[in-house]
Structures are given as structure tokens and as C-alpha cells.
């Protein structure tokens, strides 16, 4: 074999290279890899958590939506009921008003008729007296027969 001082030189070189690698090469690269691995692991965990959160939120949202739908349906139902009620009330009111107006008119008509009747009676009695006066001419004393005339008027 051909061993010589090169061996010593190479041994020194080897030692220096390993020392340099141990000091300045391996740690930064290895740390970077490990830190990135941790970061990726954290990221994956965060994604999983976010997914779970999303699922929860979606479930909550669906529930709220259902609730809101139910509420709106209830409100619509109430509004419908109220509308019917208002229509009914108004109808009733109108009806009452009509009845009132009609009955008023009726009363007025009756009163008018009574007044006309009274007037007619008076006029008839006057006419009757006038007629009787014309028929009987002088024999009839209006005052003497006024009781009969009143009776007549009352009968009319």
C-alpha cells in the first residue's frame, strides 16, 4: 500500500468539513425543515378546526333559517287573520251604518207621513166643514158641531 502524509492531510480536511457541516450547514437546514413540518401540521389542524366550525355554523344557520321561516309563516298567518278581522269589522260597521241610515230614513219617512196625514186630516176636516157648510148653508153652526167635526178628524 501507498500510505503517506496525504492521509494526515485528508484526516484534517475531513475533520474540518464535518465540523463546518455540523456548525453551519446541518442545523439551519434541518431546523427549517422541522419548523416547516410543524407549520404544515398546524395548518392542517387549523383547517380541520375550521371545517368543523363551518359545519357547526351551517347547522346553526339551517336551524335559524327554519325558525325564521316558521316565524314568518306565523306572522303571515296573523296578518291574514287580522286582515280578515278588519274586513269583517268594516263590513259589520258598514252594515250597521246602512241599517242606521235606513232606519233613520224610515223614521223620517214615517214622521213625514204622519205630518202629511195630520195636515191632510186638518185639511179634510176643513174641507168637510166647508162642504157641509155649502150643503147645509145657514143651518150649520160651526161651533155647535165642532165636536162632531173633531170626532170626524180623529177618525180619519
Amino acid at each position, binding site marked *: 500500500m501507498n500510505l503517506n502524509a496525504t492521509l494526515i492531510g485528508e484526516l484534517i480536511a*475531513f475533520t474540518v468539513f464535518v465540523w463546518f457541516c455540523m456548525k453551519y450547514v446541518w442545523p439551519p437546514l434541518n431546523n427549517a425543515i422541522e419548523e416547516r413540518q410543524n407549520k404544515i401540521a398546524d395548518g392542517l389542524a387549523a383547517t380541520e378546526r375550521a371545517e368543523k366550525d363551518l359545519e357547526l355554523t351551517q347547522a346553526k344557520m339551517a336551524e335559524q333559517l327554519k325558525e325564521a321561516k316558521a316565524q314568518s309563516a306565523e306572522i303571515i298567518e296573523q296578518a291574514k287573520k287580522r286582515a280578515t278581522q278588519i274586513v269583517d269589522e268594516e263590513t259589520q260597521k258598514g252594515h250597521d251604518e246602512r241599517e242606521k241610515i235606513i232606519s233613520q230614513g224610515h223614521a223620517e219617512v214615517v214622521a213625514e207621513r204622519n205630518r202629511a196625514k195630520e195636515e191632510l186630516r186638518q185639511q179634510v176636516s176643513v174641507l168637510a166643514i166647508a162642504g157641509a157648510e155649502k150643503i147645509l148653508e145657514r143651518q150649520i153652526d160651526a161651533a155647535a158641531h165642532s165636536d162632531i167635526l173633531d170626532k170626524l178628524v180623529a177618525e180619519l
Partner: protein
Amino acid sequence: MAAEEVTLDGHIQHHLTNAKMCSTDAGLAFNKACADSGFWTWHVDTLAWSIGLGLIFLWIFRSAAKKTTIGVPGKFQCFIEMIIEFVGNNVKDTYHGKSSLIAPLALTIFVWVFLMNLMDLIPVDFIPAFAGFVGETVVGVDSHDVFMKIVPTTDINLTAALAIGVFILMIGYSIKIKGVSGFIKELTLHPFSADSKVAMVFLIPFNLLLETIALVSKPFSLALRLFGNLYAGELIFILIGAVGLMQLPLHFVWAIFHILVIVLQAFVFMMLTIVYLSMASSDNH
């Protein structure tokens, strides 16, 4: 081409020789002048290419580390992080203790060895020929005297240095986790054990022999496996490069196959390092 066989032999020899540097009485000397300088010879090509590639590795990864972001990473960062995660997973699966050294060590070994092996895919003559040309024109030496071996992992010195580094860490971790006595016990009381104390003492030499062989064989296997695979691959590239036009399809096929070897050997060295250190830091034998 009268002496073709000699030329081919010389060609291969030339390819398999490192550029040497040593200090002599007259000052720094190179290559052939260092033929008998013994241990204190430096393979300057191995040193330059390996350290250069190591610096490229550190520069690439350091620039990624500087620009690193926890947010969305860019493509370059993704690529670097892929490698980091690949090495990190292997370490996590195999090494169960707590250590901030194992993972960067494994990363350094994997990428550095891979880059050095990758030099094997550069056609074998390109850079040596260029170096010869530069040597001839700039320095003025014969281009046959300029040597350039660009795959540092085909130099046993480099693979042995890596293995020795790992071996030192193995012993260090053993002593750190199990204590000196625990380490000695591990070396002496296994694999043979007996109930009586006398028999135990008698068995200690055998255990020590077996365990020492087992321990020492680990860095040897690490160093020789990488060296052997890459050296053989390099040799075949050199041989293919010497067969004329036929080298084109042959080189293509061998290079494709070699891509596997390059990555696999880098991975095996890294994995075995982790496994050995894991064994060194676990108590149960």
C-alpha cells in the same frame, strides 16, 4: 507505434500515479524526485481535488442554509432539503441515541464521497492530458512527468483517512456512552462468557483477540471497500480508453453502470458509518 505494449503499460501506470510533493534538502520536490521520500510525501492531486470538492459541497449547502426559509421553499432549497431529509431519515432509522454529530457527519460523508466518486465519470484522459499540456507549456516539464489522478477516492490515503476518522469516533462514542470500563468489558467479556470467574479470566485473551479483530476490521472494510470499488472502476475506464474506437460504446455502458456504483458506494460508506457508530453507542452487545 513500435512499442505499443510498453506504451499501454506506461499509459496505465501514468494514469494510476498520483502527483507527489515532498520536501527535500533542496526544498520542495515533485513526483519522481520524491521516489524515496517515504511517509512524508503528499499526493497534491488527491488533496487538491478532494478539498476542492469538499469546499464545493460546503459552499452549495451553506448557500442553501443561508437562504433557507420556513415558508415555501424554492427548487434549489427543495433539492438540498431532499438530500438532508434522506440522510436524516437514514440516521433516524439506524442511530437511536441522541447526537448532533451523526447526521452532519453522515451528510458530509455521503455528499463528499459522492462528489469525489463523480469525478470518475469525467473521461479519464481529459484532465490528465490538460494537466500535461499545462505542465509542458507553462512549467516546461515533460508531459509524461506530470501526474494527475482526479478521483480522490481511488487513493487509499483518502479512504483510509475517512475510515480512521470514523474509527476514532467509534472509539470515542464507545468510551463516552459506556465508559472506559464498559468499553474494556465489551472487548474482553464477549463473545465467550462463563459462569465461573476462573474460566472467565481464561477466556479473556480469546475474547480480546476476536473483538479487536472485529473492531479493527470495520475501518479496514470501510476504507478498502470504497477504494477497491473506485480503483477497479477507474482501471476499467483507463483500459476502455486504450482500445481505440470501440471505447465509445464500451465507455458509455460502463459509465452508466458506474453511476450506480458511484451513488451506491457513497451511500454504503454513509450507512456503515451510521451503523458502526450506532453499535458503538448502544450498550447491548
